């Protein structure tokens, strides 16, 4: 079993984290509200997963002010994009192996 799941990244084991990364892969910059809307999760839930991904520096956080309102937007780092691609490759391999059984 261990050989099959080798390559799956622990950082992406959660649904919400997978979602965050997939959105950031195809969008340059996404703000918190848009992420929340697309993933349909609570503020706290999203924030905790974002900080987990930030800790391993897979995503970058940009904080700025639009007028007087603070606006935080997120983007995928180069390392994060690479890691996510590897993770997807591993999933693909896993599914292909499963199909041969």
């Amino acid at each position, binding site marked *: 079993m261990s050989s*099959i799941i080798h390559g799956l990244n622990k950082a992406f084991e959660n649904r919400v984290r997978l979602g965050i990364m997939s959105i950031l892969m195809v*969008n340059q910059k*996404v703000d918190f509200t848009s992420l929340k*809307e697309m993933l349909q999760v609570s503020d706290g839930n999203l924030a905790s997963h974002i900080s987990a991904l930030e800790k391993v520096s897979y995503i970058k956080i940009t904080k700025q002010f639009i007028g007087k309102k603070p606006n935080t937007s997120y983007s995928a780092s180069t390392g994060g994009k690479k890691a996510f691609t590897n993770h997807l490759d591993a999933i693909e391999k896993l599914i292909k192996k499963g199909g041969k059984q």
Partner: protein
Amino acid sequence: MLLLLYNAAPKKKIHPAVYGAWIYNICFVTLLFKVLLINRAMTEQDEQIENLTEIRNLMERSTRFISLSGLSGVSAGICALIGAAIAYRYFGYNAYFPNFYYHIFTEAEFIRMDFLQFLFTLSVGVLVSALGLGFLFTWRRTKQKGGSLWNSSTRRLLFHLAIPLVTGGLFCIILLLHGEVYMVAPTTLVFYGLALINASKYTLNDIQYLGISEIILGLIASVYVGYGLVFWAIGFGVLHIVYGTVMYFKYEK
């Protein structure tokens, strides 16, 4: 394991019933083990397939505006046809004459402000009602699907739709300034087609076919100058209705 048991059995002279029970037990345990293992592998696989579907879905939804309703196209087409019919009734059979536009706008005795005023009012009326109805149907569809109408994918779609459209609009004004009135209708069709093809990367891919049809129609219209109103009615009326109906049955039924 089974073979070993089979060999050992006669020596110890186990009662056939006990022997059978043993085989049964061992078979049952291995079966259970297999089922558990395979099940584990299967759920892992199913889960990953589900994850992949979710990923694809999110990538699609976060970049494309997909709640564009087919009914928006149909209503815009109907508005355009009504507008064309009103224009035809107003100008009468003259609308078909190749030199009609030329006469209206360039020959001194034919410049009539009421014509221009009428055309302007009519086109603004058609534009507002088509956009209004189009917005209404798309808004209704977005509400049904539970998304938001104004997000980054909407902004991106409108931006990329606007570039060729605004260019085309300005170009038409320039054509009017030069007095080349007969080229306005074909030009609007061509630029509208280009705008649709440009926007098709940010919404349902299918609108590129509508775009290609508009461009072909616009090019034909620029050869048969003077039949502007007819081509205009086909391009903005008939094509919109056909496209909208196809989209409605493809995605909303």
